């Protein structure tokens, strides 16, 4: 019988983008944390998160907001002396928490990703107004007002789409997606 995968193995298996650069090579130098422009908003720094993954501290990793604060700018990835794709590891952690629904409820990121995905599957293109409700209701009154004001100014300049766009070969597009993920019968 095959052994059960450890948490760090599971995360590594979700890292196609970062293949060829095992997390186990991390030397804990902290170049990633020193580089990250969003580090002060993270519960755990990138260096600590990788150390925690390698130590199989599953709950601590999944309770941290770290991967959802990553903006995917890859600054850590290009500087890592151990050549680890750290932004890729952040994606892997996000995927793990999406698939296992282990993310905490106060995060906007996962709901935003899911809504974005559904919009694309439905129409083939993204459409900002559909995405707004995923984050705007989490705002305080001041932020809500600022966001609406910003959107209104954009609209007055003709920069907000009125109708959702849709690609022409949408049936083929959706059947293509069915070849990869389960999504009901062919159209």
């Amino acid at each position: 019988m095959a052994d059960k995968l450890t948490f760090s193995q599971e995360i590594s298996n979700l890292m196609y983008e970062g293949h060829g650069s095992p997390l186990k090579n991390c030397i804990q130098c902290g170049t990633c944390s020193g580089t990250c422009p969003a580090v002060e908003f993270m519960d755990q720094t990138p260096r600590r998160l990788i150390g925690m993954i390698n130590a199989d501290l599953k709950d601590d990793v999944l309770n941290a907001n770290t991967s959802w604060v990553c903006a995917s700018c890859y600054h850590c990835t290009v500087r890592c002396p151990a050549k680890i794709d750290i932004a890729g590891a952040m994606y892997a952690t996000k995927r793990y928490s999406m698939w296992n629904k282990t993310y905490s409820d106060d995060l906007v990121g996962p709901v935003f990703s899911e809504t974005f995905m559904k919009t694309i599957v439905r129409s083939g293109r993204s459409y900002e107004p559909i995405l707004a409700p995923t984050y705007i209701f989490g705002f305080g009154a001041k932020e809500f007002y600022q966001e609406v004001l910003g959107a209104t100014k954009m609209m007055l300049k003709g920069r907000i789409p009125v109708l959702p766009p849709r690609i022409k070969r949408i049936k083929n597009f959706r059947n293509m997606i069915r070849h990869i993920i389960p999504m009901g019968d062919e159209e």
Partner: protein
Amino acid sequence: MKKYAYFPGCSLEKMAVSYHKSSLETTQALGVELEELEDWNCCGATTYFHLDEILANTLVARNLAMAEKEGLDFVAPCSACYKNAYFTNSYMQEDEDLAEHINFALEADDLQLSGDIKVHHLIDIFADDIGPETIKDKVTTPLEGLKIAPYYGCQIVRPRKNGEEVENPQFFEEILEAMGADAVDFAYKTRCCGGSLLLTNRKAALDMIHILLQNITNSGAEVVATACPLCQVNLEVYQTQVNEEFGTDYAIPVLYFTQLMGLALGIAPKKLGIGSELVETLPLLSQFIEKEVS
């Protein structure tokens, strides 16, 4: 006339329509044709990859396959679209197993992808294919004395594609100088603008934008040039909110590099989408706009 398959991406349909217009105008003036892919889909930005890598790569592959069918190299003006397209295209040649999965899915739309076309960011076309010398020759209204901050942002230069310089790239400066402008040096030219964090973690994003605006202003720049729709929106549209949040008074124009280039090439501002900004640009740019002869 060299021709490319042009993938505008979702943002350029509306939010960044001025980037779309100015890209078409300037490439045409410089002897390059951008032929829009006829039924392109969203590339997934940085968001699909949170869910499923194979599906994310497949959605990107559909666009690449349409370009390959036309026998044209692929060009994207948005940094995230470019990064996605570049890597999916190279995985097709590096990984037979992934390529087989993707091609099986693409059959549903009568497409296939081998990955042997080239993928470019729009700015590469100006920096490499056209080149600063040619741009210089075609400039009719040099942007003399205009201090421009070349904001690279993140995904044009990162992750590293082919051993290129990622810490201190110079190609953007060279393009701005070919227009006759002064490219100012600022430390954070490749620091991230926050991307979609603005929607998912507003506090972090406003802080990142604030730091960038501060660094840009200290460098003495009068205008920021960007090469990505998300960078433009974050740096421009959210200046008001940064000002409210941090008690600052930033009001620096943020334009696409193609809009500035269009002015240098003598193209009418309206054709370049100038006028749809939220931070006034005309007081600064009027010196470079030819007066209409009445």
